[in-house]
């Protein structure tokens, strides 16, 4: 286990640096080719050159290498790494620290991710197990068909359709019936800060829907595979009951890949909520990226994405270590 952990940690460092450098290089390249992003702030107006120069300096974009196309700007990259290490991710165009913006938005995204993960794990695993133990029966075909359907619907289409169905039709009907306020908040078109959990329920389910499809399919195939294994046959031959064979012997082993998938999904969902947060108007981290793209604040986009990428890579690392704890075949490789 120790050697595996060490090797995995050593692998993590170049990947982290490489990914950060990739983001840095693309940003530099875009400035080198498209010119100073500060100028875009002023739209059609022509600000005095001194203003632009002062602002450029304030945002740390005055490095001469940003005017030389193709220059990888290593100096700037190492400066940035130093700043990141001190928790400094720069400021947005209103002089607010990016890290503060993220800290303000994070609780919403975490709540949304939590709802999505609980939803997708419970429904996904139950559906997968039901399909797996009744292979080729009605329930199996039903689960297989509905998961393919879920996977085929792009998140933004699902989000928009659910928003209209639940928010507009159900929500309006409930309001007419005089339903309690938390219930109408659950079925509302947008996020309501008075109901921080209820109004995130439906968006969370939309966010988790795609992974629900994958989890159900993964559980199903993995369970079917372990049901064929010798130890399951032995357990049956011993005369154990069906529930015990499935629940204790087969399911525990077949859940290992599922847990790994869920772990990585947590990392992905925290950054991947861009679409869902955009549609349901949730001021989380994804919403922050969305707004910054709209207003052309590329440095903020890069800073937020850099931080999210770090979170994502760190979750992946933890999941890999957890995987080794759960599955001895990995750590004794």
């Amino acid at each position, binding site marked *: 286990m120790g050697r595996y952990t060490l090797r995995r940690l050593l692998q993590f460092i170049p990947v982290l640096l490489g990914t950060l450098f990739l983001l840095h290089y*693309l940003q530099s390249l875009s400035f080198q080719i498209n010119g100073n992003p500060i100028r875009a702030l002023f739209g059609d107006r022509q600000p005095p050159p001194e203003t632009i120069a002062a602002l450029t300096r304030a945002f740390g974009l005055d490095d001469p290498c940003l005017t030389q196309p193709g220059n990888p700007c290593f100096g700037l990259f190492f400066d940035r790494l130093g700043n990141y290490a001190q928790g400094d991710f720069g400021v947005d165009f209103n002089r607010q620290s990016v890290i503060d913006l993220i800290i303000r938005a994070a609780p919403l995204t975490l709540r949304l991710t939590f709802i999505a993960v609980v939803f997708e794990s419970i429904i996904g695993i139950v559906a997968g197990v039901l399909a797996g133990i009744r292979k080729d029966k009605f329930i199996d075909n039903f689960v297989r068909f509905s998961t393919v359907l879920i*996977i085929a619907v*792009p998140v933004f*289409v699902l989000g928009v359709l659910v928003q209209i169905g639940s928010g507009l039709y159900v929500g309006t009907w409930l309001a007419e019936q005089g339903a309690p306020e938390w219930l109408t908040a659950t079925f509302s078109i947008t996020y309501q800060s008075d109901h921080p959990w209820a109004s995130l329920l439906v968006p969370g389910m939309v966010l988790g829907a795609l992974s629900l499809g994958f989890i159900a399919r993964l559980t199903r195939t993995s369970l079917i595979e372990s049901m064929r294994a010798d130890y399951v046959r032995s357990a049956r031959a011993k005369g154990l009951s069906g529930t015990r064979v499935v629940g204790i012997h087969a399911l525990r082993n077949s859940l290992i890949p599922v847990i790994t998938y869920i772990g990585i999904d947590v990392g992905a969902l925290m950054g991947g909520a861009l679409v869902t947060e*955009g549609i349901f108007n949730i001021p989380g981290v994804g919403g922050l990226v969305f707004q910054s793209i709209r207003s052309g604040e590329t440095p903020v986009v890069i800073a937020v994405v850099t931080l999210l990428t770090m979170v994502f890579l760190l979750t992946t690392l933890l999941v*890999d270590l957890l995987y080794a704890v759960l599955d001895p075949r990995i750590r004794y490789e």
Partner: protein
Amino acid sequence: MSDQGTPGIREGNAAASTRESPAGHPSDDVDDRDDEAQERGKKERNASLWADAWRELYHNWLFVVSGLLVLIVLSWAAFPGLWTSNDPSDAGQCELLNNRAPPSSEHIFGTTVQGCDMYATVIYGARPSIIIAVVVTAVSVFIGMAFGVVAGYYGGWIDTVISRLTDVVLGLPFLLGAVVFLALLQDQNIWTVAIVLIALGWTQVTRIMRGNVIAAKGQDYVEAARALGASNFSIIMRHILPNSIAPVIVLATLYLGSFVSAEATLTFLGVGLQLPAISWGITIAEGQLLAVGGFPHLLIYPAGAVIVTVLSFILLGDALRDALDPRGR
């Protein structure tokens, strides 16, 4: 094998489903099995993997239906004129006065926000999505296969470099990465969207190909070919590639579907195709707000087109995977 135990499933990418093993076997060919056994008794079949797969697919109604749907959508993209005589990008085809009209006998799907015929818009909207999906899939499968074969076959430092590069690109969450790259570009059109998706898309193919090549390389027939003096190039072309390409073909089919979906998503987010282009993503984005206001047809038809297209590609890929994986038989 440095990336053993790194589950390469991220962001609900199509590749996630290729990781599942092929236990899902179409049940409808169970009946054929007895006949086949009898047939085998009569004459010795020369059954390659592909011949077997084709026979299985031919009897699978899901494959036939989804294949037909894919052909229909491809024909929308290639020859939209076959399906409708009015091109929404022609002058005079759209009447702004007649916008958002509900379905009628003249406009069977109603009209769009711009007053164009919705049916024609859906047909013409297929082209950018399909071009992007086909180009991105072809190029990223080619790059991914080349990298995967080189890394898997030669090993050593070249494998280390390629594998770490794959890890770095996979380190970016897919959607977030695409959004950032596109936001950094000054103008966004079909080709910039395609380039960004290729830049992020080749990694899964590389990983799968590398693993398959490493497995195929250890086989006895490769040893035998080498002992007979075959060159590396001919070993790769004649022995390694044919024996490791099947999962990549399945992945490519799933890729086609997920890139249709990715293009529409990026366009919807405002970093993909821009007006006046005609695309499903744009039509959905336009219809989104007004659909809430009581014009559901603005959303239902373009969204339906995206869903049917992606669904057909996924079903096609599923059927191919079941047929091409001999372990499922």
